[in-house]
């Protein structure tokens, strides 16, 4: 499916999510499903939690225990294929990369979108960070209802 539509299958997505218990703390979700020559996620991680190895064509593997959810990898990934997810009560809180204008403002309600580009829910913008080191890839903290944990991927301006 991914090869025809650009939409990863449910199994592919689930394979990149740690157990729900681990998600009580923020963890990186590495949605890189293909062997491509690229390793900035691994070299940018300050905690050595992402391993690609000598052959940069391998897919990244996350050490869930080492990952602090710091989100440095989110804005380092040239493929915009990484987000950070956390379960907080009834909410799923994401940190996602965003490269469009205008940027949202905290407390804005935008649309939550799935991997097929369909609007699935409301998404509350909690925080917007854009620093020099992130090099024009903004990091949005967004919360959506908990049941969209595996569906939500990005936001769209309403």
């Amino acid at each position: 499916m991914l090869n025809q539509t650009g939409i990863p299958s449910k199994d592919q997505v689930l394979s990149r999510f740690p157990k729900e218990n681990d998600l009580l703390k923020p963890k990186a979700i590495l949605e890189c499903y293909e062997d491509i020559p690229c390793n900035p996620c691994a070299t940018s991680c300050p905690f050595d939690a992402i391993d690609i190895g000598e052959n940069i064509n391998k897919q990244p593997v996350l050490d869930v225990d080492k990952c602090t959810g710091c989100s440095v990898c989110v804005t380092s990934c040239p493929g915009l294929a990484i987000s950070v997810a956390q379960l907080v009560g009834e909410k799923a809180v994401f940190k996602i990369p965003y490269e469009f204008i205008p940027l949202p403002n905290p407390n804005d309600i935008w649309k939550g979108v799935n991997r097929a580009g369909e609007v699935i829910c409301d998404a509350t913008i909690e925080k917007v960070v854009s620093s020099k080191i992130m090099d024009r890839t903004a990091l949005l903290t967004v919360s959506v209802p908990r049941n969209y944990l595996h569906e939500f991927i990005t936001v769209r301006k309403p």
Partner: protein
Amino acid sequence: MMRIEKHPILNFEKKKEISFIFENKQVTGYEGDTIASALHALGIKTLSYSIKDKRSRGFYCAIGNCASCHMIVNGIPNVRTCITPLTEGLIVERQHNKGVIK
């Protein structure tokens, strides 16, 4: 308006205006433009006509490879307008033939 004003990655500052003549009319582009980019920003997509059937032609590659953007500039035919910087007072005309050297 075909000019990008705001962009998430790039900065397009307003630059100095440059006036030039296109098909006997005075028009305006900006410093840093090529002839083809200035014309496109004005909504002008047809740069020449094919030699035999006189079909409209625009540019294709925009980097000087393909010859699709050839125009007559200051009387000189076959100028690759996609890589020729726009300068003040240029006289630009659509080309209808192989080009005639005067």
